[in-house]
């Protein structure tokens, strides 16, 4: 019975992964519909391995894009930010047109905090390097920044 549940769990895992950020426009980026997956570095983690961080779900993609591809990505990202986003729900910054970032606090789902993080900077070899991260869990952003402090 447990094996059956595990098998069912494993089989439904892709579905669960897809549902997590399904309602976001950037989901298309995570799913490899804008930039193909063989041009991305994708990281997925859920379950016990994230408990130490008080998180339940982590997904990130990193890619190098051309200026044209960046335009498509930028459009999707700005749709998720939206003009209804409250200032207190978002942290953002830019450095001389070479780098920009935001951390967006999304509405809670099932009592879990949700964040969308975005970073973009000019690549030395041309194009732009983009990182997109989606997180779910109980940790606050303050806690996460403390836990993942840059060394």
């Amino acid at each position, binding site marked *: 019975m447990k094996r059956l549940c595990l098998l069912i769990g494993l089989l439904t895992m892709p579905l669960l992964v897809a549902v997590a950020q399904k309602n976001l426009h950037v989901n298309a980026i995570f799913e490899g519909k804008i930039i*193909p997956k063989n041009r991305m570095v994708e990281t997925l983690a859920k379950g016990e391995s994230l408990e130490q961080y008080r998180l339940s779900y982590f997904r990130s993609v990193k890619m*190098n894009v051309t200026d044209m591809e960046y335009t498509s990505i930028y459009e999707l990202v700005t749709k998720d930010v939206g003009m209804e986003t409250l200032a207190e729900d978002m942290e953002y910054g830019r450095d001389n047109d070479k780098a920009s970032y935001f951390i967006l606090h999304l509405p809670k789902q099932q009592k879990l905090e949700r964040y969308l993080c975005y970073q973009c900077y000019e690549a030395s*070899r041309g194009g732009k390097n983009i990182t997109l991260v989606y997180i779910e869990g109980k940790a606050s952003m303050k806690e996460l920044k403390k836990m993942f402090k840059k060394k």
Partner: protein
Amino acid sequence: MTQQEFEQIAPEMRDEMLRIGRDFFGNEMDADDVAQEGLLVLWKMRERMEPDRRHTGLAIRVAKHCCMDLVRKRKRHENESLPSEGDTLRYEKNLSATPQEELEASELKNAVDMAISHLNPSERRLFEMRQLDGLSNDEIAQQTNIPKPSVKSMVSTARKKVFEELKRRMRQ
């Protein structure tokens, strides 16, 4: 080859170049650098890449060139000597050219490009299939349906024309 045609074959070429980079450097970051530089080089060459032919051979050659390029850049910037591998005299010269030497090489390259442009289209095509794609006469004969003796003769004519033109330029 159009941009769309290039984008279709780019992933396969990228995989080949990643493999070459990985074999040489043994790490993903450098392999990725090789693949990125390589795709850029191929992108610049796309107009001479025929759409109905496979170009993985060219991608592999470009990747090897990018590996050497990366070694040269590092040698220049970090000013460290390469470990002794093989004939050090032979390849250290290639990998540590001075700016003056590079300028002379660049002028010679321009002269070669000019001489190639003076060839007739068939001769130029075969010259480039040997020089850029690294194909043998047999492979060229197969791909172009030109008889092998004709391939050899045309390649020879093209090479001699380019060589003679360059010798004339250098005497001036």
